[in-house]
């Protein structure tokens, strides 16, 4: 059973009726989407409202169709035969007086449901056609031709918890408390110390002198002490240059940094 014959293949009711008369329907069997589709087509030949359709008559039409197919040695798909068997059963139920001992739904109930199915399928086909007849996007109405991209902007918000806050404070205060005990000030030469030292010495620095000459005595043997003293002396030199009391120069990256007193005349 194929699922997708072209939509355009919908048969014109009258011509189908005519072809049914000529039993040409059987040749077209591949054009039907299964027994229900065929039943609907047959039903339309009754030329009545689907709600007033005679299911008994329809069953007879269908059975005649299957009979004809057999005569013509046309292979019908299994579901057509299942439907034939079921319609034969339905026909017998509709014709025989109801047997009160028999279980299951009555012939009328079964017939009513089949009629409902046919009507529902027809209704779905009608609304499908109405749906496709609507104005469609890209055919009848159109979207913006130059849409603008919405720029995604990432905004970062920062957050912290009360615990973070308290831990941070504890960290600071703990450090404060331990400062006298943990700080090894022996090996630290502060900028203040360097400044004090240099302020006393720059008065004599009339010519360019390497700032390493200003390192305090006894701080150049131990590397840790040397590093601290160098950093402090360098920072103090910058501070003095900022104050306008000395000039600094360096000929190249990593070259020695030289310092001299700034003369009053330059001022």
């Amino acid at each position, binding site marked *: 059973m194929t699922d997708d014959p072209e939509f355009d293949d919908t048969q014109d009711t009258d011509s189908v009726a005519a072809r049914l008369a000529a039993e040409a329907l059987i040749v077209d069997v591949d054009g039907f989407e299964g027994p229900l589709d065929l039943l609907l087509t047959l039903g339309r030949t009754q030329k009545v409202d689907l709600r007033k359709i005679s299911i008994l008559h329809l069953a007879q039409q269908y059975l005649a169709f299957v009979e004809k197919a057999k005569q013509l040695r046309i292979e019908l798909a299994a579901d057509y035969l299942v439907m034939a068997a*079921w319609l034969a059963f339905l026909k017998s139920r509709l014709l025989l007086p109801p047997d009160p001992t028999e279980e299951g739904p009555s012939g009328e109930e079964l017939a009513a449901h089949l009629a409902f199915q046919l009507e529902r399928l027809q209704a779905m086909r009608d*609304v499908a056609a109405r749906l496709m007849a609507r104005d469609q996007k*890209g055919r009848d*109405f159109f979207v913006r031709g130059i849409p603008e991209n919405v720029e995604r902007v990432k905004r970062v918000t920062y957050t912290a918890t009360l615990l973070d806050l308290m831990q941070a404070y504890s960290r600071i205060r703990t450090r404060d408390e331990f400062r006298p005990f943990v700080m090894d000030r022996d090996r630290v030469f502060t900028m203040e110390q360097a400044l004090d030292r240099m302020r006393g010495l720059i008065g004599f620095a009339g010519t360019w002198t390497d700032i390493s000459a200003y390192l305090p005595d006894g701080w150049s043997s131990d590397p840790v002490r040397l590093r601290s003293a160098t950093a402090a002396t360098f920072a103090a030199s910058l501070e003095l240059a900022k104050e306008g009391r000395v000039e600094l120069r360096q000929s190249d990256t990593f070259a020695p940094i030289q310092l001299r007193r700034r003369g009053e005349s330059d001022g």
Partner: protein
Amino acid sequence: MADDTDMPQDAAETEEKSLFEAPPMGEQERMVEAILFASAEPVTVKELNGRMPHGCDAAEALVHLRKRYEGRGVNLVRVGDAWAIRTAPDLGFLMQKETVETRKLSRAAIETLAIVAYHQPVTRAEIEEIRGVAVSRGTVDQLLEMEWIRFGRRRMTPGRPVTFVVTQEFLDHFGLESARDLPGLKELRAAGLLDNRPPPGVMPQMGEGDQDAEEETAEGQSELFED
């Protein structure tokens, strides 16, 4: 911020207030207009409100804007919970250049689409029951790919079959405000044609040919056929 050291208390208060006061409605209308013009896709009221300054009422601005574009060359249309600007359908003849060639849908696909739209949420078994034939995987895939249908919630019945529903893209494509506006929906409902009416007793099973469908829907179908 850095230099309002001496800002009096109430000045700060006023500033804070104005941050929460929405711009006038005319301005809000302009904003909605700009956002909708810039987007090819419908934009939800929620997103509009999210993009507009705090305190704006996009829903009200939309009412004004819709009126403003009535009868114009482009119109404001509603698509589900979202809104879009679309050219007026009567001017389609001017747009040959913009016309998009859509793939021709098979009859099976069109019927399946209609069944999903009118019966949603609907299972594959129910579609097969209505059409009387198996629904091929290709048909459903095509509709999914076109983004006209999507998976809905699973049906809370044995086998928990998946259901299909139509999408916002479907509504947009067919110019529908909501699935309630489908043509003929009321009549179909009144005629009882949208009822899920289980077949009484023995009925031939539809769509037996399709193996895939059989596997997936076996339980759903048996459920439908039991009474």
